């Protein structure tokens, strides 16, 4: 499947280059991270973050048609894989409405729609744990969707309003992770997401967002065995079976003023309502709040608190994902060299304290990010 993505992407690029003389301006973000913790069984070490290639291109002179892609090289199971994380083509159908087709980040919350896969873009070293991508160890949300999207921008006398609607392949659990079904849906149940972002004119940088996501998820049970050649054999143990009907509600509040005061305040609150095939409903809530401020165009001290402490232990969704409750506090500082030296690079230092059912632990991380 990964190879298929690469072939499709490069075929698309070659076609676009062949059919027009436009030069594609490719940008990239990347990072190298050292992290360590005093938790047993988690030795410290270096890791390569996601190497994130992205580009956007107008397909006509006026920009009524546009394409965007984000291609990520990341470490996985001791090797590297290439994932096409975002790819969409857009048409502006009215002056304030755009439609898109492709693979997007779900219209779910602030972080997922703003920082995407670029750790260089986010102030902190890591995303909130519960906002991990589907292939991450602490993922709990369907962060991608493949299908159609409509975006509307409206300007009222008191605020700007952005509205997003998404409809696409419903996610399922493939035995290992939540899978957005990028290469075709496994059933007829579709996924839907919507988001409204209100930006009052009275305070530049303030945003209040509301999101909703629906998925009827199915699940495949698998068996993993190492074969005589030492390779991993993955065998389905069952046909797809109903897992949960899932509704996710989210509200976020953000004040991000990167142009003048350098203040960043972000908070998101989620309610996940899972209904099992027998009709029993389980509700789980989680949230985080993050604050930071940039001084001298160089250093940004920050703090974040994440809470995932209201988990229903019988919820079949979280039982399958192996999710456990936690509370995590972070303190850190980011040093940016862009505005003082003209170098698109930053260094982040972060310490964290985590409480979870197995006990408490402290962690440390040092990250060097870049962009070009």
């Amino acid at each position, binding site marked *: 499947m990964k190879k298929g993505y690469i072939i499709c992407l490069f075929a698309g690029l070659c076609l676009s280059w062949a059919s027009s003389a436009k030069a594609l301006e490719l940008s990239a973000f990347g990072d190298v991270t050292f992290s360590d913790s005093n938790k047993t069984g988690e030795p410290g070490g270096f890791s390569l973050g996601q190497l994130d290639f992205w580009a956007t291109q107008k397909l006509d002179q006026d920009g009524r048609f546009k394409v965007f892609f984000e291609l990520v090289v990341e470490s996985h199971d001791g090797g590297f894989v290439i994932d096409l994380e975002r790819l969409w083509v857009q048409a502006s159908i009215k*002056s304030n409405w755009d439609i898109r087709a492709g693979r997007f980040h779900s219209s779910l919350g602030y972080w997922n729609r703003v920082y*995407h896969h670029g750790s260089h873009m986010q102030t902190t070293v890591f995303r909130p744990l519960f906002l991990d991508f589907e292939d991450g160890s602490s993922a709990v949300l369907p962060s991608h969707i493949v299908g159609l999207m409509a975006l509307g921008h409206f300007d009222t006398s008191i605020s700007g309003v952005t509205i997003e609607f998404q409809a696409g392949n419903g996610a399922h659990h493939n035995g290992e992770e939540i899978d957005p079904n990028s290469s075709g849906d496994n059933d007829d149940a579709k996924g839907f997401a919507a988001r409204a972002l209100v930006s009052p004119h009275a305070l530049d940088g303030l945003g209040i967002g509301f999101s909703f996501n629906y998925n009827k998820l199915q699940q495949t049970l698998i068996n993993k065995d190492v074969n005589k050649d030492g390779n991993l054999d993955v065998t389905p143990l069952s046909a797809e079976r109903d897992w949960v009907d899932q509704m996710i509600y989210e509200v976020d509040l953000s004040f991000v003023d990167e142009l003048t005061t350098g203040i960043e305040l972000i908070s998101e609150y989620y309610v996940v309502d899972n209904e099992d095939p027998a009709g029993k409903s389980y509700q789980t809530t989680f949230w985080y709040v993050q604050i930071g401020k940039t001084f001298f165009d160089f250093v940004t001290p920050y703090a974040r608190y994440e809470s995932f402490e209201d988990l229903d232990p019988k919820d079949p969704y979280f039982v399958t994902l192996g999710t456990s409750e936690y509370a995590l506090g972070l303190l850190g500082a980011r040093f940016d060299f862009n505005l003082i030296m003209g170098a698109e690079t930053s260094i982040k230092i972060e310490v964290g304290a985590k409480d979870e059912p197995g006990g408490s632990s402290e962690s440390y991380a040092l990250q060097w990010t870049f962009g070009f």
Partner: protein
Amino acid sequence: MKVLSKIVVVLPLIFFLSLPGIVSAGDIAVIANSSFPIDKVNSGYLKKVYLGKKTTEGGMKIVPVDYQDNGPVKRDFIGKLLFSTVGKYQAYWLKQIFREGLTPPASVQNVQRMVNRVRKTKGAIGYLYVVDLENKQGIKVLYLMR
């Protein structure tokens, strides 16, 4: 002859600009294509246009135009409009492009091309020092930034 005509235009302008409380050499005129739906805007409006938060006016797509280099007029414009620096403005746009694939303001090399682009493009908005505003044909001044 061309130089002489320029002196004839510029000298009275400099005299005019030197009068207190009127305009000064550092003032910036925000110009628009003559078909632009409105004749006057304020700084809040312009701020939204140059930050990609306002993209249409009266059903017409707004096309903000900027300068390629980070010369004095761009520095003054960003400073007066956004109370910020060109570096932060560029960092802001990098994030907007990455987040949503937004298109940043089109950029031109110099004042002459700025005027030409605004004159020829429906919905275009641009800016220049008042002293560089010689020929208003096909454009209109929406706002004077002191």
